């Protein structure tokens, strides 16, 4: 369910690090809890995002949730399809439903994130919702 090559936050974002850049999205668990996503707000290319601060929002039929950036860096791409087709976050949260790609400022920030196994354990503990 949760790709091994991703890292995860306690706020249910995933990040896929690829050299000095990384893609960010929300997890399967997050999309399931939120329900049908109807709107996604992402930052503009070139803007700065800060670790643990909101980089955008996802709005579903029942709630609006902040997406917290797992890392600090500069946005180098946003998913071009996501504004017109926010349902991609529901149908393929770990793939087509990615939100932004950033250039990492400090690679070591990813060290405190959870692996797929740790994240699944975290979900099982039920401390998450």
């Amino acid at each position: 369910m949760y790709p091994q090559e991703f890292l995860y936050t306690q706020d249910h974002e995933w990040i896929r690090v690829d050299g000095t850049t990384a893609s960010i999205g929300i997890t399967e668990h997050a999309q399931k809890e939120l329900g049908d996503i109807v709107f996604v707000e992402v930052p503009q290319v070139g803007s700065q995002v800060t670790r643990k601060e909101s980089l955008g929002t996802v709005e579903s039929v029942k709630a609006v949730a902040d997406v917290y950036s797992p890392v600090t860096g500069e946005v180098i791409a946003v998913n071009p399809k996501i504004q017109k087709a926010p349902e991609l976050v529901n149908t393929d949260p770990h793939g087509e439903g990615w939100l932004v790609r950033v250039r990492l400022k400090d690679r070591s920030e990813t060290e405190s994130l959870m692996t797929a196994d740790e994240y699944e354990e975290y979900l099982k503990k039920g401390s998450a919702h």
Partner: protein
Amino acid sequence: MSQSGGHNGRITEAIPHITRNEALIFERSSAGKTGAEVAPLDVPPVEAPEVLGKDFYREDIDGFPEVSELEVIRHFTRLSTWNYGIDTGLYPLGSCTMKYNPRINEVVARLDGLATDHPYIPARLAQGCLGILAETARCVAEITGMDAVSLQPAAGAQGELTGLLMIRAYHEDRGERRKYILIPDSAHGTNPASVTTSGYEARSLKSNDRGCVDLAELERAMTPETAGLMLTNPNTLGIFEEQIREVCLRVHHRGGLVYMDGANMNALIGIARPGDFGVDVMHLNLHKTFSTPHGGGGPGSGPVAVKRKLEPYLPTPTIEETGDGFYKLNFDRPKSVGRVRAFYGNFGMAVRALAYMLAYGADGLRQVTEDAVLNANYLRARLSTAYDLAYDAPSMHECVFSDRRQAARGVRTGDIAKRLMDYGFHPYTVSFPLVVPGAMMIEPTESASKAELDAFVDALLAIAQEVKEHPEVVAGAPHSTRLSRLDEATAARKPILRWKPS
């Protein structure tokens, strides 16, 4: 929309039955029909665009409905019968305090001198109305334990904004530029919105395992840049912040102020006063706690009450006694955050709220609180056999369950709420507060009788049983309404905002 009846098409129903879906008024239109007949022209005709100029002349609206007066009356009368309100049944929407609006309030608000006085009438001729506002403010101050009150804000959220602007004015007056307002993660969504609108930045404060403010978290977050704490007490979980005095002390110790959202005052009146436990500024919702109409029924009213130190910043004008038994409007308030609402707020709501407070008196208002809390705890006790409580802490005027047990069988809080409609009840609040997975938030208010509470509990217990035996019945509810499951996602993703001729 076609309403041709059964019987092999031989019988055509004259009108759609009152319980059936209703066509749009546009769909009732037939060309050339009018609702009113105008007398024949007895003066020379003129061309409207020439006389008015084309800037003021509107072209015909394509597809404008052409219907008779009776068709208009029937259409809107039928729609009006679809309303569900506190006057038709239990309205257990948690966090909303949907209590009965006593008819005496309406009688009083319609008294000639009150209903017909014009807001531009000079103060010396409007002494009665000003007296009512002053008396309402006095009652609010007494109930909340605060020193001064403005009745101007027209809703809870406007009260919040007004209070936050006063906090800002207070800090700036002291030469301090603070940046953050702390908000517990259980808060109502309007709180962070008001904070942002006021120019501050909202910072979320994690609750402890009892659903209350975590003192250690608060201590960490209360930096010299923090302007204050905004919290609801009892909080949105219906739990009283037992350490509220300590919470307020710690915020004050760091130079911050405490804002209390008064949305849940139905749990405190006559029992505890926010001003006594350390709150500096708060608002009340007259349309919740003080029985004025809520939702579509009437304008809101969100009076804001403050401690003495914030009094200079209250919206202008204030109503003051001149000492010889008269009232005047004071516009000379250099530190005021300014006017927040035309005239003196929604005056008619102050009249209704005062009627309510005086009709009950101090003892009666205390009993309102006691009954509201008793009702909520009765529901909690009976329902906790079938539903999981979100937190074990004592409930005040509302209780919050989680759909945990039912979710294991694939039925979620929204499904249970929709099934409640089949049992004739308005749903509870669904999926809020967000800190509770699958929240079911129930607030019966003092208005519900024991028989009504029992019927409601029986319905929810029956649904819990259905979840065990026939989960698909609950997951597919409602089955008795004109429309069942709507496509909420498509409606939000691709909204159709107005009718257009096809």
